């Protein structure tokens, strides 16, 4: 019996054979070739079961922009601010009973009074607006321009605009 070549077995396992039937028929009848195929298959399995390793560090850092450092206040300034806050809190707590005694003596306007004041301000504003008039605009003598001159001016300005933009964008397009 003629055995299958190693090349044929490799191509069979790699699914590169157009016609697999002749090889399969031979393998069914030949124990030697079936054993060679099994050994090759075992090698495939071993190779493909190789575990993946992990990286010890990320490779992405190199491609990321440097993080913007957050401004750090000097330590003495932070401490001073904390002390000030604590001091202010203590003073407020100590002064609270005295302030509570003084509060009734302060006269605060009622909501009705505030609304009345707002209403009178609004009426005064409306009065001002009703009597307001713009200052007279001085009259200029009329300028006579023929339609031809006007067209020429418009064409010239458009041309200048196009040339100017072209020059401005030339470097960017490059």
């Amino acid at each position, binding site marked *: 019996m003629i055995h299958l070549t190693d090349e044929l077995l*490799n*191509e069979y396992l790699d699914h590169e054979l157009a016609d697999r039937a002749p090889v399969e028929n031979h393998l069914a009848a030949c124990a030697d070739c079936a054993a060679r195929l099994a050994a*090759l298959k075992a090698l495939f399995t071993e*190779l493909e079961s*190789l575990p993946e390793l992990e990286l*010890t560090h990320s*490779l*992405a850092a190199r491609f990321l922009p440097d993080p913007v450092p957050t401004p750090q206040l000097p330590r003495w300034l932070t401490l001073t601010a904390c002390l000030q806050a604590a001091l202010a809190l203590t003073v407020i707590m100590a002064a609270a009973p005295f302030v509570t005694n003084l509060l009734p003596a302060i006269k605060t306007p009622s909501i009705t009074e505030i609304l009345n004041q707002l209403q009178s301000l609004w009426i005064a504003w409306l009065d001002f607006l009703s009597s307001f008039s713009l200052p007279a605009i001085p009259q200029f003598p009329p300028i006579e321009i023929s339609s031809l001159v006007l067209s020429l001016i418009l064409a010239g300005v458009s041309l200048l605009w196009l040339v100017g933009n072209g020059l401005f964008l030339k470097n960017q397009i490059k």
Partner: protein
Amino acid sequence: MDAPTDRDLILRARRGDAEAFGELVTRYQASVFNVCYRMTHERREAEDLAQETFLRAHSRLGTFDIQREFGPWIRRVAANLCLNRLEAQRPVSELDDERDADPTQSPEAALEVRERSEQIRGALASLPAQYRAVIELRHYQELSYNEISAELNLPLSGVKSHLFRARKLLAERLK
């Protein structure tokens, strides 16, 4: 919110968005590193090559065909880069003492797997560079003979003979 697709990230990276490319690197760095490690069997070198692969990819992003998948493409770039490096070096570099560890296995089983993995990696590292490349592209990147031929610029017959010989050598060394 759904994570952006590779395609979105590539388009953003092309417009200069460094964070988008950083995200692509994060997604594929492990697989690219493993390609390089299988090819070189040396951790430091594999990390350098993986980094270089991403640098190369970054510079070629403008010409990358957006219809293709990024993962397979970057792994092929890595395999080619490793092949070029190995061919330039020629003498086989000193093998790494890295071990394959799986924390979920028992110590004895883990040791057994580590030893066998190490033998396989050692056997792979002992192959000529071209043989390593065809094994990498066929077994780990699942390319067809025609695709390997195009990728390595080898005739089809060369791909077949490289694969058969590489496997024969591996089988002998792993007995």
